[in-house]
């Protein structure tokens, strides 16, 4: 009887019910989405990034080898990589000083580098032309650099001559790893092109297995270059991911709190609006407890419907979001259901409870008289 009554009363106040339902569904879907993102996406994204990003880096393994031999080997290596069509970003390093302090300058083609470092977050843009540079976040923080500012780098060469390079900062890079300590340029002036240290970021097919095979091949051909699997890069991605999760978490939390406030006030005013009806139920024989039960049941009906809608919408939303932004698909996580359910339930029960207490604090005769 009471269940039927609760249903009827909800249908009778359809507009109000829908309003609360909508708000509650939004909050439920946010919870579901955030739960899905934090439970599933992190795993998925890491693998996705592993596919598009680098999985190995190449270095010289013989420190003592002569410079001539080194550059010869490096050229051969580049040719091999290009022939096999392996995605690669070629980096050359030089130590320069900025305001008297040493820092590593990396020369790498921006397009190549961007392709292999999708997990990097660049504030501003990557350098395109000569005279432009991108600065690691930690370097930027150290010198309190700003976008658009000019940076003077000096390098001391063996001959005792000082070379200078001036560049405009187009972006800051957040990689979560040691690259935040570096300065990147895409093009360098001629006198600067004589870099001594080389390395490459590679995306080698078949992962660890492919890397091993490749190393073997290089060794057999007498090329003194070694390829190392990049496991530590995961750290950079993790850091970025954590930031994404944190950011979306804060946003969802804010929206969630707002909807909770909205829903509570809607539920509350719904109950207060019905003072007269509640007084009548009391007059007909409903005790405070059975009235509370009735109103809670109503709230529960809404909450249950909202969590079901919210879970569905939230999962779809996270799927869409993941596809749109990270190009991966998420698996619906069953754990989000009970979480969404419980949170939605708690919110509506608290709101309804407050409403009941307020509504019952009035003498029924006065409530019945008042329009």
């Amino acid at each position: 009887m009471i269940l039927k009554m609760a249903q009827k009363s909800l249908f009778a106040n359809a507009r109000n019910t829908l309003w609360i339902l909508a708000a509650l569904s939004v909050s439920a879907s946010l919870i579901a989405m955030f739960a899905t993102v934090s439970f599933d996406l992190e795993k998925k994204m890491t693998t996705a990034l592993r596919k598009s990003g680098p999985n190995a880096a190449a270095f010289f393994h013989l420190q003592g080898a002569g410079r001539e031999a080194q550059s010869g080997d490096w050229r051969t290596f580049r040719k091999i990589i290009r022939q096999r069509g392996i995605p690669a970003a070629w980096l050359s390093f030089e130590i320069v000083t900025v305001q008297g302090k040493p820092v590593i300058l990396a020369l790498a083609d921006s397009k190549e580098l961007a392709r292999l470092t999708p997990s990097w977050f660049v504030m501003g843009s990557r350098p395109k032309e000569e005279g432009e540079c991108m600065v690691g976040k930690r370097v930027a923080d150290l010198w309190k650099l700003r976008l658009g500012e000019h940076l003077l780098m000096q390098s001391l060469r063996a001959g005792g001559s000082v070379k200078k390079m001036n560049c405009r900062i187009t972006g800051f890079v957040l990689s979560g790893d040691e690259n935040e300590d570096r300065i990147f340029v895409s093009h360098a002036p001629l006198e600067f092109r004589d870099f001594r240290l080389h390395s490459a970021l590679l995306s080698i097919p078949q992962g660890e297995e492919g890397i091993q095979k490749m190393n073997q091949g290089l060794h057999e051909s007498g090329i003194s270059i070694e390829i190392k699997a990049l496991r530590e890069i995961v750290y950079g991605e993790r850091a970025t991911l954590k930031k994404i999760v944190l950011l979306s978490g804060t946003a969802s939390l804010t929206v969630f709190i707002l909807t909770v406030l909205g829903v509570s006030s809607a539920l509350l005013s719904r109950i207060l609006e019905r003072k007269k009806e509640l007084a009548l139920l009391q007059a007909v024989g409903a005790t405070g407890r059975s009235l509370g039960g009735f109103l809670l049941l109503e709230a529960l009906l809404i909450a249950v419907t909202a969590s079901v809608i919210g879970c569905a919408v939230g999962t779809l939303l996270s799927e869409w979001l993941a596809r749109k932004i990270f190009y991966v698909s998420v698996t619906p996580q069953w754990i989000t259901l009970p979480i969404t359910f419980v949170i939605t339930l708690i919110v509506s029960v608290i709101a309804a409870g407050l409403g009941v207490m307020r509504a019952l604090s009035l003498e029924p005769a006065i409530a019945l008289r008042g329009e």
Partner: protein
Amino acid sequence: MSKAIIALHQVHKYYLKGVHALQDVNLSIEEGQWTAMMGPSGSGKTTLLNLLDGLDRPSLGRIEILGIDTSRFSADNWTVFRRENIGLVFQQFYLIPYLTALENVMLAQYYHSMADKRQAQKSLEEIGLGARMHHFPSELSGGEQQRVCIARALINEPKIILADEPTGNLDEDNEKIVMDIFHKLDAERKTVLMVTHNPNLGRLADRRIYLEHGRVKHEHWV
């Protein structure tokens, strides 16, 4: 002399804004007695009934019903006491808008003990609403709504019936139906306290009480 089923001792009721709605009302109503309460608008008739059904409380004084002092009743005590012993007919027809006529009656059964559809249907048929059972209050005329209220008040066979102008909004035919119901209640020796301006109904009463400015002005025994 039969015992007092309702007794008021020096009852006062003040409202906010300095309204003194009831002043020193002393009243004793005996079991099986039929009392009509009369008086001009604003004299405190509804206020008095609300004190007797526990929807409101006296500011001063004591009310005993069925020999029980009600002054210490909590809201829930009152609710339980009311649904066990008192049938209420309001001055306005208060029905739950989203329940049908039948469901409104069954609700009172539900809170009292348990819903009994048969019995609820029968009570509506008796009152001439057999064809209107599944209508919502908004689909019923004023007289029909009033009769649903009466059916609801009587469904649990209360010992005491408090009715606030039950024929106030009815035409002659409907009035006749309601009068017949009250006739029957009288024959069953129920205790009825009824506010009415209707002389036909007033004539049924064993006793008439006149209220004025919140005081019992005079009484008339038949």
